[in-house]
């Protein structure tokens, strides 16, 4: 029986996020929060591993006030329980501090065989938390996983690297990061959505996992100064002509003269 901890982060729904045309800053307030795409695939992986044998899937998230609602989706998909570290004093900390908190939380949950998450969350794109956690827990890490199976006390995975697919074997416990190719996450049934609300969810602050929020915050060393949509630097030539044929001919001419068709 495998006990799997899945690391999930709720982020703004990127398909709904807009950019303020004046300030070029992203508008995140009031946008629905969802589990980051690759984390959701990690969860799907965990649920499939549970279904192929026996086990338990525990969702763990460091989040904020909206995280509980976002994690209902995880419970509906098939996670058995959810733990949320929600401590205002930890808002805005970096990947280093985040991984310290998650380390403390997985140790409190305890008795796990596998810790799994997405390669990176799509808001920060930092791809650090999984390897950092492996280092802090002194566990083997298996990153960029696109296929995985569990055996007796071990796992076998295919890693998707630039030049090769690497097939690896490692004893449990281990820390795994999945890539997009690993699966398509399921859409939970209405019945499972109803059931999710009755599954156990617990919220912890830093103290509950044995940490001082001040100390954790002080260890955080990377800070975001500002976030802006890039300036668009394009020609913005709108081709106008009396007939569609003329416009098409002008466009064809423009494409050819840009030299982008050369092989």
């Amino acid at each position, binding site marked *: 029986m495998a006990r799997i901890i899945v690391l999930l982060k709720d982020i703004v729904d990127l398909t709904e996020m807009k950019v303020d045309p004046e300030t070029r800053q992203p508008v995140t307030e009031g946008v629905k929060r969802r589990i980051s795409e690759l984390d959701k695939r990690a969860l799907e992986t965990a649920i499939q591993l549970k279904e192929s044998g026996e086990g338990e899937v525990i969702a763990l998230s460091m989040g904020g006030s909206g995280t509980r609602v976002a994690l209902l989706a995880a419970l509906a998909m098939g996670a058995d329980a959810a733990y949320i570290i929600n401590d205002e004093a930890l808002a805005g900390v970096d990947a280093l501090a985040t991984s310290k908190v998650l380390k403390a939380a997985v140790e409190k949950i305890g008795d796990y065989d596998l810790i799994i998450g997405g390669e990176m969350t*799509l808001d920060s794109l*930092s791809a650090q938390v999984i390897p950092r956690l492996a280092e802090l827990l002194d566990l083997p890490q298996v990153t960029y996983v696109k296929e995985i199976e569990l055996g007796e006390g071990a796992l076998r995975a295919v890693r998707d690297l630039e030049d*090769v697919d690497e097939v690896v*074997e490692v004893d449990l416990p281990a820390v795994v990061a999945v890539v997009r190719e690993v699966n398509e996450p399921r859409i939970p049934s209405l019945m499972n959505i109803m059931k999710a609300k009755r599954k156990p969810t617990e919220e912890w602050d830093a103290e509950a996992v044995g940490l001082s929020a001040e100390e954790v915050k002080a260890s955080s060393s990377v800070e975001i100064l500002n976030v802006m949509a890039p300036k668009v630097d394009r020609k913005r030539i709108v081709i106008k002509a009396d007939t569609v044929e003329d416009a098409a001919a002008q466009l*064809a001419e423009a494409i050819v003269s840009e030299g982008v068709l050369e092989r």
Partner: protein
Amino acid sequence: MAQNVLAFSEDRELLIQLLGKGKELADSLGGELNALLVGSNISDSGELAQYGSKKTLVADGPGFEHFSVEAYKAAFLKAVEASDPGIILIGATKRGKELAARVAAALDTGCMTECMTLEVDEEGNLVSERLTYAGSTIATEVSRRAPHIVTIPSRAFEAPEPGEGVGEIVTLDVSIPEPRVKVVERREKTKGDVDLEGAPIIVSAGRGFKAKEDLKILEELAEVLGAKVGCSRPISADMGWMDDWIGISGRKVSPKLYLACGISGTIQHAAGIRNSQILVAINEDENANIHEISDYSIVGDLYTVLPALIKALKEKLG
């Protein structure tokens, strides 16, 4: 305070780019630029001095033949001991990124991923610009504690010209930990099959297409241009006409030519196509955002524009 810079990438081309930027940083901080090489039977460690590496630290041994994050981390920590860096530059390959995070955790310091720019501010902190929100925004971040670790993608900085630099080669004595992750097979990837990410020309469908069968017009255009066919999210996620979409949480592409047909150009789609060299749009809505972010666009109905464009291109290309 003088700060040394340490550069590493298992990708030699990228390492040389890092040395270019590393030299600039080291000079401005009054420190020394050093490079780390890890591998088995390394024969070309002398080369790096001409790109400014003062000390080329070499970890050479059969245990380093293939990249293993634990073994490479052990080598890295030795290199840090031997060169006392204030700034660590690591090539942002997949392997480089996992190594950087692991080294950062071991050194209990911060790390900034895939930095496109790097600057030292008045207080000696390292400031960088990097993509966030799935590539739709650029975040300016500051690292406030040395050693500052950053990963840098290919082509963020130019490769320097080789010079007359003189440096020394320092052999590192690394005890490699017993590997816990056993590699049982390495399957080389076939390079022939160019996917969307590597395609030089892409034509792409959006909600302007009214039926799946109509994609045939786009396929015909693709054939004329030698292009791959892609689509925006609704065509794939909502309509299910194609497996995969371009944009946020989908594929990010960087073709020489991207032709968006009937695509409105949400920031989510724009983030996926921003690295296109030339962007062309055909959309009947003159207020569609795609016109704002394109090099050339036609405000018109794709059902009449596309056949005319196919004809015009055929005539031009013979």
